[in-house]
């Protein structure tokens, strides 16, 4: 019986054959896994967006968005984050052929843009609190500081990660592990820009329209 099978099938396989080589190690699995993390992070943001949306007109007699939001400042921050997205793109393009200096330079530019984004946001928070628009003032302001602060914390984490990668590239160059980490960091950075589109639209623009 067994001999007959071996004769009719010249190359017998006793396991499920997948479409193409799936004996890969860390590469594809890491990137897909990181993507799944980003999607779950998006759901975390969805919950915070939903609570902000529910509280967005709960002013409790306090300041309304129209009174406290400065759109030119928000436009500046939006521009900074958008430019930082393309500078990270340039870092990724320099990474592929293995240009270490160029990758480091673009990463540093991205980190500085990210830091100025956080600085402008902290300045905005500071002036809001100085005006008496603190998180305790109303449900709207609690939701605002939670949502915008959560995004700002993510950007801060991204900046720390960029500096960690700069140190790792400085020590070991653009080895495969570092390239993989940079690809994850790139997804993270671009993801934060996507979240910011939601923030400036739903918090600031629609808030001022309300």
């Amino acid at each position, binding site marked *: 019986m067994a001999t007959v099978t071996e004769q009719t099938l010249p190359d017998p396989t006793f396991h499920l054959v997948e479409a193409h*080589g799936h004996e890969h190690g860390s590469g594809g699995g890491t990137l*897909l896994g990181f*993507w799944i993390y980003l999607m779950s992070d998006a759901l975390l943001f969805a919950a915070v967006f939903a609570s902000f949306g529910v509280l967005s007109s709960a002013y409790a007699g306090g300041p309304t968005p129209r009174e406290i939001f400065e759109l030119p400042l928000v436009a500046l921050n939006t521009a900074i984050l958008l430019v930082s*997205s393309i500078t990270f793109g340039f870092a990724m393009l320099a990474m592929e052929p293995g240009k270490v200096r160029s990758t480091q330079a673009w990463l540093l530019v991205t980190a500085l843009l990210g830091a100025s984004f956080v600085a402008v946001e902290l300045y905005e928070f500071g002036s809001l609190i100085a005006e008496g628009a603190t998180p305790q003032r109303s449900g709207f302001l609690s939701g605002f500081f939670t949502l915008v602060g959560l995004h700002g914390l993510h950007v801060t984490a991204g900046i720390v990660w960029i500096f960690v990668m700069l140190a790792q590239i400085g020590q070991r160059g653009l080895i495969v592990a570092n390239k993989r980490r940079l690809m994850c960091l790139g*997804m993270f950075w671009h993801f934060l820009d996507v979240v910011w589109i939601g923030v400036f*639209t739903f918090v600031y623009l629609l808030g001022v329209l309300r």
Partner: protein
Amino acid sequence: MSIHSEANLDAELHAHGDTHGHGSYRSYLVGFLLSVILTAIPFWLVMAHPIASAGVTAAFVIVFAALQILVHTVCFLHVNSEAEGGWTLMAYIFTAILLIITIAGSLWIMYHLNSNMMPSMAAQAANSL
């Protein structure tokens, strides 16, 4: 599994259509220019008031945000049906559906709570007096 050489890993990293971060100058520049336009228009709509109705302006602002999110997804995050055998796209669509249900559902329910429940509660309070 087996011991992988560095070149082998590098090949694996690229073999599966892992197009994350593997854009071209063209895709990044196109994405950037589209994003600038799709950001500038809603800010202009809100700051310069070219449309009298706030509701119509809000609808336009939301449409531009949705378009810009799509541009970022394609040009910067490089999500397409080939990357990771289509799993990034599947996870993205699934997340988008959950996101819309969470946000729109919360707003809908809470809006109805405010507009429908409060008067009856007020009436109950009045009856109990």
